C-alpha cells in the first residue's frame, strides 16, 4: 500500500516538476530570444500566465470528439513518457515506471502524442492543420532516423536497451556517453534540433505560413493543455538526453543545470536560423546527422 502511495505521489511530483521546469524553460526560451534580439522580453514566468489564462478561457469550441481528445492524447503521451524516463539516478520518488520500459518503447511513446494530436487537428477540417500535420510527420521521418541510429549505436555498444542500464554504464565507467561515443551524441543532438521544432525546424507551426498549423483551431483549454503537454514533453526529452548522454543527475540542481545546458542548444541554434522548407528539413537530417549515425554505429560495433 505504502509503495503504491509513494508511486502515485512520486508520479504527481514528477509531473509537477516536469511541468514547472518545462514552463520555466519555455519562458527562458522567450527571454533568451528577446535578449538576443535586444528586447527586454517577457518575464520568465510568462508561460505560466499564458497557460493559466488559456485554462480560464470561458468557451471552448471543438469540431468533434477527436478534436476534443487530441490534446488529451498529447498530454497522455508526454506524461506516460515522463513516467518511463528516469529523472534522478537515485531515490524512489522519481523512479516511477523506469524499469517497465526501455528506449525503443520510449521512442514510440514519444510519437504517440503527435499522432493523437494530429488526429485532433485533422478533425477540425482546417486545411492549415492538415498541412501542418503533414509537415510535422514528414519532418519526424527525417529526425527519427539519426536519433534512432544514435540510440542503436549506444545500445549495441553497451548491450542494453534500457535507460537505467545506460545510466548504470555511465556510473560504472565514470565517462559520459557523449564522450564514449561522440558521433552518436552528434547525431542525437542534431536530431534533437528537429525534435524541439524550434527554428529552423518550426515548419509545423510556422505562423506566417500555415497560421500555426495543427493547433490553428485549438483555443482556450485545448491550447492550454497542449502547452502543458509541450512543456512536459520538452522536459522529457531533455531528461532523456541527460540520462543517456550526460550520466543522469543525482539531484534536482544538477538535473536543472544539465537540462538547461542541453536546452540552450536548440534554442540558440534556432535564434540565428531562418526557417527551412519541409523537404529541406528532411534532407538536412538525412545528410550530416545520418552520416554521424553511420559512423556512430560503426564505432559502436567495431
Amino acid at each position: 500500500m505504502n509503495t503504491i502511495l509513494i508511486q502515485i505521489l512520486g508520479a504527481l511530483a514528477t509531473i509537477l516538476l516536469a511541468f514547472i521546469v518545462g514552463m520555466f524553460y519555455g519562458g527562458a526560451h522567450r527571454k533568451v530570444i528577446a535578449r538576443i534580439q535586444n528586447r527586454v522580453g517577457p518575464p520568465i514566468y510568462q508561460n505560466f500566465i499564458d497557460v493559466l489564462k488559456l485554462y480560464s478561457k470561458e468557451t471552448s469550441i471543438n469540431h468533434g470528439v477527436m478534436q476534443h481528445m487530441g490534446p488529451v492524447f498529447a498530454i497522455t503521451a508526454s506524461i506516460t513518457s515522463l513516467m518511463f524516463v528516469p529523472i534522478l539516478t537515485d531515490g524512489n520518488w522519481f523512479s516511477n515506471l523506469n524499469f517497465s520500459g526501455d528506449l525503443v518503447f520510449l521512442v514510440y511513446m514519444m510519437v504517440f502524442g503527435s499522432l493523437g494530436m494530429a488526429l485532433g487537428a485533422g478533425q477540425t477540417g482546417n486545411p492549415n492543420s492538415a498541412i501542418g500535420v503533414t509537415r510535422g510527420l514528414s519532418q519526424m521521418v527525417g529526425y527519427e532516423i539519426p536519433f534512432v541510429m544514435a540510440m542503436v549505436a549506444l545500445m549495441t555498444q553497451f548491450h542494453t536497451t534500457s535507460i537505467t542500464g545506460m545510466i548504470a554504464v555511465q556510473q560504472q565507467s565514470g565517462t559520459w556517453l557523449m564522450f564514449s561515443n561522440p558521433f552518436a551524441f552528434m547525431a542525437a543532438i542534431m536530431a534533437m534540433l528537429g525534435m524541439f521544432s524550434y527554428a529552423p525546424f518550426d515548419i509545423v507551426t510556422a505562423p506566417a505560413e500555415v497560421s500555426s498549423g495543427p493547433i490553428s483551431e485549438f483555443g482556450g483549454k485545448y491550447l492550454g493543455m497542449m502547452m502543458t503537454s509541450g512543456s512536459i514533453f520538452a522536459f522529457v526529452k531533455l531528461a532523456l538526453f541527460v540520462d543517456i548522454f550526460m550520466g543522469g543527475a543525482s539531484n534536482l540542481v544538477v538535473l536543472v543545470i544539465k537540462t538547461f545546458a542541453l536546452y540552450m542548444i536548440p534554442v540558440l541554434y534556432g535564434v540565428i536560423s531562418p526557417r527551412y522548407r519541409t523537404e529541406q528539413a528532411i534532407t538536412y537530417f538525412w545528410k550530416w546527422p545520418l552520416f554521424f549515425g553511420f559512423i556512430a554505429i560503426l564505432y559502436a560495433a567495431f
Partner: protein
Amino acid sequence: MNSLILLLILMFGGALFAFILNKFVPALRDIFVVLLMLGVSYLFFSTGISNRLNFDVLGIHMQWGFTSASYLFGIIVVVLGSLALIYSTAYMKGKDRLGYFYMNFLFSIGAMLGILMSRDLISLFFFWEIMTWSSYFIVIYSGNDVDRRGLKYMIFSAIGAYSMLMAIVIVNSFIGSFLLEDVFASIFAIGSGYQIAIAILLMIGFGVKSAMMPLHVWAPRAYSESPMSYTAVFSGALSKMGVFGFALVLFNLVSTQNWLINEVVAWLAAITSVLATFYAVIQSDAKKLLAYSSIAQIGYIIIGLASNTYLGVMAGLFLAVLHAVFKSTLFMAVGAVERQVGTTDMTKISGLIRRMPWTFVATLISIIALAGLPPLGGFVGKWMLYEALITSGHYYLVIMVFLSSTAAFLYSYRILFGMFLGQEEPEFAHVKEAPLSMLIPMLILSGISVLSGSHPGFILEPIQSAMASFGFQSNLPHESWWELTVLFNTWGDKVALVNVLTSIVGVFLIALAFITIKGYKNQRYVTTKDISSSGEIIQPEDNMTFQIDFYKPFERAIWPLLKRKIDDYYTDFGKGLEALFDFVRRFYNGNGQFYAIYVMAFLALLLIAGTKYFGF
C-alpha cells in the same frame, strides 16, 4: 472418413455447390456459404494436429496433416475466412457473378487449408496453384484493366510457382522423396550449391506471394482492385502463405552456415518495406495505400523470420498473426466506406467520422496497431522485432525498419484523415453506417488487436509451439522470452505492457475527464465549416479539406528513390521480349516453298552435324 479429406471435400464441394446454388436459388447462397465456412471452421478446430493421412498418387508418397505451425496459420485462415464471408454477404450484395465470386473465394480458402495441411512438397504445390488461380479469378472479378493487372498477378504468380516447382523437382531428384520431413532431414547432405539454389528458388516462389521486393509489382493493383471482402483474406491470410513458406525454408533448408542468405533475405525485405512504405505515403487511394502498406508490413514479418534469432522469429510470427488481424480490418473498413460512399479516392471523401463512427473506431484501432504505437498489439510485435535485431547485431537493418515504420505513421495518418477526418461534406450527409454484418467482423478483429497489446502471451504461446514445430533452431537457450504481459530481450531489458497500458489509459482518462468536466457548459460543437481562414467565409459546399498532394514535401525529399519504378523495368523487359517474339514469328513467312527449304536445310545440317557429333 478422415476429417482432413472431409475438410477439403467440404470446401471444394461446397464451393462448386455454391456456384450451382447461385444459379438456381440465389437467396440461399449467402446463408449457405457462411454456414459452410462456419462448419469448416468447426471441423478445423476439432481436427487438431495429430491427424496424419498418408497416400500415394502416381507413385509419389504424400502426407497430409496439421502441425502446430500450420495450425497457427490455419487459425488465421479460418477465422479471417469466416469473418470475411460474413462481411461479404453485405458487401457483395447486389453485385453480379456472385456464384463465381463465392466459388473462387471458397476455393482459395480451401486451397490455403490444403497448403497448410500438406506435409509434402507436391501437395503443397498442388494447393498452391489452386490458390493462385482461384485468387486470380477474384482479382480480375471487377473486370477493369484486367489485361495489365490480372496478367501481372498471374505472370508473377506463375514465375513464383514455377521456381518453386523447379526447386521441388530438384530436391526430389536428390532425395527421392517429397515429404517435408525427408527433405528437411537430408537437405544438408546434398551439394551446397544446389542446396542454396533450392532455397533461393523456393524463396522466389514464396516471395511472390508475400510480395517481396523485386517481385511485388503485382500486389498493389491486385490488392486494391479485388473486392475488399476478399482483399481482407488476400492480404491477411493468403499472403501469409508466403510467410509460412518462408518460415519453412529459412528454418529448415538454409543451414546456419549460410547466414548470407538470411542476411540477403532480410535486406530485401527491409528494402521492400521501406520502398513500399514510401509508395504508400504518396498514394491518394485508400485501397492502394493499404495495398502498399501490406507489402511493407510483410517485409517486417520476413525480416523477423530471417533475423535468425528467437525473439525475431517470434516477432515475425506475431506480426504475421497481427497483420492478418488489423490489415483485414482496415481493408474491411475501406470496403465499408466504398460501399457506403461509392469511392475510396481520398481526395474525394472527407469527414465521415460522424457518419460512420463504428467504422472509424475499427479503423482507428487497427491503424494504431499498424503504426505500432503502444498500447496495442502492433507495438508488441515491433518491439520484439527491434530488440531482436538490435541484440543480434543487425544495426543497419534496424534503421531500415525504423525508417519504414516511422514513414508508416505518415500513411497511417493519411488514411484516417483522408476518409474520416477533415470537413464534413453535405454530399455525404446521407451516408449511413455500414450494416451490422460488416461491422461485427471489423469490431471482433479490432478487439483482438486491443487484447494483443496488453496480453500478447495469448498469441505468443501458440507461436512458441509453432516455432518448435517449424523446426526453428535457436542458438540461444530456450528460456521464456515473455510472460503473459511482459516482454524481455536477450539482454534482460523488458517492457511491462500492463504498466504501459495502465499508465496510458489512466492518464488518458484523467486528462479526458479534466478537459471535459472543466467548463463543460461553455463547450460548444461547431461545424467543420466554421474554421479560421483569415476571415474568409466558407460556404457549406466549399471543401477546404487538404487532400491533394498530401505529402508533397516528403515526396520531393524522397523523389530520387521513386523516380523510376521497378514496374517500369519490367515493362521495358516485356516490350523487348515482345519485339523479340515478333522477330521470331517472321520465321513462318507464309511461303510454302520456304518451309520445304527449311526441311532440306535441316536435313543437310543434320547429316553434316550427325557425322561430326553423333558418332555415325
